[in-house]
C-alpha cells in the first residue's frame, strides 16, 4: 500500500471525473440513444437529396432545427448524467468522500458531456451538410464553418444548462430540462418583443439564421448582431455553470432515500 498520496490538482481531478464519465457513457445506453436521435437529420438529408429539395437552403432549415430542437434534446439527455444518476445510483458518496473539490464533479461531467455530444453533433451536422448540399458543397463552406461553430456553441450552452438541471433536480432532471428548453425557451422565443430572452434565438443569430419579424402590430422583434448574441450565449453558459457549481458546493445530497 502506498503512503497517503499528495492532494490531486484540480486539473487532474477534472480530467479524471471526465474520463470516468466518458468511460461509463460509452458503455451505457446514452450514446446509442444520442446516435438514434442524430440519425434522424441524416435521414431527412438523404430524403431531401432524393426528392430534389436538397441544397444550402435545405441545410439552413436543418441547422435551424438542430439549434432549436435537436441539440437541446440531445443535451437534455445528459442532464441526468451530471449528478442525478449518481444520486439515484447511490454512487455520489464515492466521489464526495475523496479529497476533491465538490465543484469538480459537475464541471468534470460537463466537460465529458460536451466532449462526447459535441463530437457526435459536429460529425452529424457535417454529414448532413455533405448529403444535403449536393452540388453546392464548395459554395457553402462558409455556411458549414458557421454551422460547426454554432453547433459547438449550442452544445456548450445546453451542456451547461444540463449541468445545472442535473445538479439542482436529482429526481426528474431530464423532464425538468426538456420542459425548460422545449417549452419555456422556445415559447419565449415565439413571443414578439421578448424573444431576445430566448437562448435559442441568440444561437440562431450567431449563425446568421435569425429573421426578425417587423410586422407585428404590438411589438417588433429586436435586431440582434452575431457578436452580441455570441457574448450573451457565452455569458449565459458561464452563469448556468456557476449555478451548478454553487449548488453542488453547498448541498448535501441524500443517497439513502
Amino acid at each position, binding site marked *: *500500500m*502506498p*503512503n*497517503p*498520496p*499528495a*492532494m*490531486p490538482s484540480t486539473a*487532474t*481531478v477534472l480530467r*479524471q*471525473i471526465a*474520463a*470516468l464519465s466518458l*468511460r*461509463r457513457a460509452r*458503455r*451505457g445506453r446514452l450514446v446509442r440513444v444520442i446516435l438514434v436521435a442524430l440519425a434522424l437529420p441524416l435521414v431527412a438529408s438523404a430524403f431531401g437529396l432524393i426528392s430534389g429539395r436538397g441544397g444550402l437552403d435545405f441545410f439552413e432549415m436543418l441547422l435551424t432545427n438542430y439549434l432549436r430542437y435537436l441539440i437541446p434534446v440531445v443535451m437534455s439527455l445528459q442532464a441526468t448524467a451530471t449528478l442525478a444518476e449518481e444520486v439515484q*445510483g*447511490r*454512487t455520489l*458518496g*464515492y*466521489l*464526495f*468522500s*475523496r*479529497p*476533491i*473539490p*465538490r465543484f469538480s464533479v459537475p464541471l468534470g461531467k460537463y466537460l465529458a458531456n460536451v466532449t462526447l455530444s459535441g463530437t457526435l453533433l459536429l460529425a452529424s451536422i457535417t454529414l448532413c451538410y455533405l448529403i444535403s448540399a449536393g452540388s453546392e458543397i464548395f459554395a457553402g463552406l462558409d455556411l458549414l464553418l458557421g454551422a460547426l461553430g454554432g453547433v459547438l456553441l449550442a452544445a456548450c450552452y445546453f451542456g451547461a444548462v444540463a449541468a445545472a438541471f442535473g445538479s439542482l433536480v436529482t429526481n426528474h432532471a431530464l423532464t425538468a430540462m426538456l420542459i425548460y428548453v422545449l417549452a419555456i425557451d422556445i415559447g419565449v422565443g415565439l413571443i414578439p418583443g421578448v424573444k431576445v430572452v430566448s437562448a435559442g434565438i441568440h444561437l440562431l443569430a450567431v449563425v446568421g439564421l435569425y429573421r426578425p419579424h417587423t410586422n407585428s402590430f404590438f411589438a417588433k422583434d429586436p435586431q440582434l448582431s452575431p457578436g452580441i448574441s455570441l457574448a450573451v450565449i457565452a455569458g449565459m453558459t458561464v452563469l448556468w455553470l456557476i449555478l451548478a457549481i454553487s449548488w453542488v458546493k453547498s448541498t*448535501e445530497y*441524500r*443517497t*439513502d432515500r
Partner: protein
Amino acid sequence: MTPVVETNKLSKWYGKIAGVNDLTVKIGAGVTGLLGPNGAGKSTAIKLLSGALRPSKGELKVFGEPVWGNLETLRRIGHCPEHDGIYHDLTAVEFVAAMATLSGLDKRSAQSAASTALDRVKLGDARNRPIGQYSKGMRQRVKLAQAIVHDPDLVLFDEPLTGCDPVARAQIVALIKALGKEGKAVLVSSHILHEIEAMTDQIVLLYKGQVLADGNIYRIREMIDEHPHKVSVRCEHPRQLAAAIVEQSAISAVHFPDDQELLIETRMPDQCYGLLASAIVEGGFSVAALTSPDNNLQSVFEYLTRNRGPEGVADA
C-alpha cells in the same frame, strides 16, 4: 493519546428528525464497533465522519480538523458505504483505480494500488470483470477495496458484512482486524452484536441518535444473549440446509417464511454461524443472502433504555 475522531454534542437533523443527537464520543486507533439497531444513527454518524453530511450543531473533528469541505482531512479517510450503489458498468480494477486517482495517486500507482487492494479483499482473479456481473458479496468487497486503496488512516465501514456469505464474512472480518493491527483507526457499524464481536471488543452503542454506552462489549453481549437471535438465509434449498443443522443444540427453532428462505432462531449465535458456515460449504448450498434481523437487538435496547436508563449501561 490524541483521539482520531472526537465529537462534542454533535447533532444532525433531517428536518424535524434527528439522525444523531448530542453525540459526544472519542475514538482512537484500532477497531471500534458502532452498534445499534436500524435507525439508531449509525449511518448518519459515518456519513458525518466521511464528510458527506454537514453537522447541524456541535463539533466534529477528525485528526483534530473539521471534515466537511476539508480536503486535507478527507485525504486521510476511507469510506465504505452501506448501500449497494456502485458503478456496475466498470470493472473492479477500473473503479478502484479511478477512486485511487481521485485520492491523488498518479495513474501507474493507482493501477498498482487498485490491484493490491483487490488482492487484499480476495478479488484479484475477478478484477477485470464488470462489477454488474458480481454477486452481492463480491460487490461488497469491491466497496471495501475502494475504501482502502489510498491507504487511509481512518477507515469507515458501514455495515460491511451485509449480504455476504460466510466465507466472505470471514475474509472481511480478517481484513478489518488486520487494518486495526496496522495501527489504523477503523470504525465499523453493524446492528448485529455477533459481527462486531468478531472484530473488536471496543464498541460505541448508539440508540435513537445518542450514545447509550461505550467501552467493552462483554456486558452488553450477556444482555443480548438473553434474547433469541434470528438468522435469515436465502437459498435455493432452505429445507435441505435446515435438515443439516436442525439437530444441533445451538439451533432453537427453524422457520420457512417462503420457499427460498430459512429463518433460524438461536441463543448461541457463535456456534450457529459456525454450523451454518460448515453446512453451507459441505453441502455446496448456493446462498443468495445471509442476514440477521435486528429485532433481538431492538428489544434489548428498549429494555436497556426503559429499565435501566443510559447510566445503567454506561459502565459496560
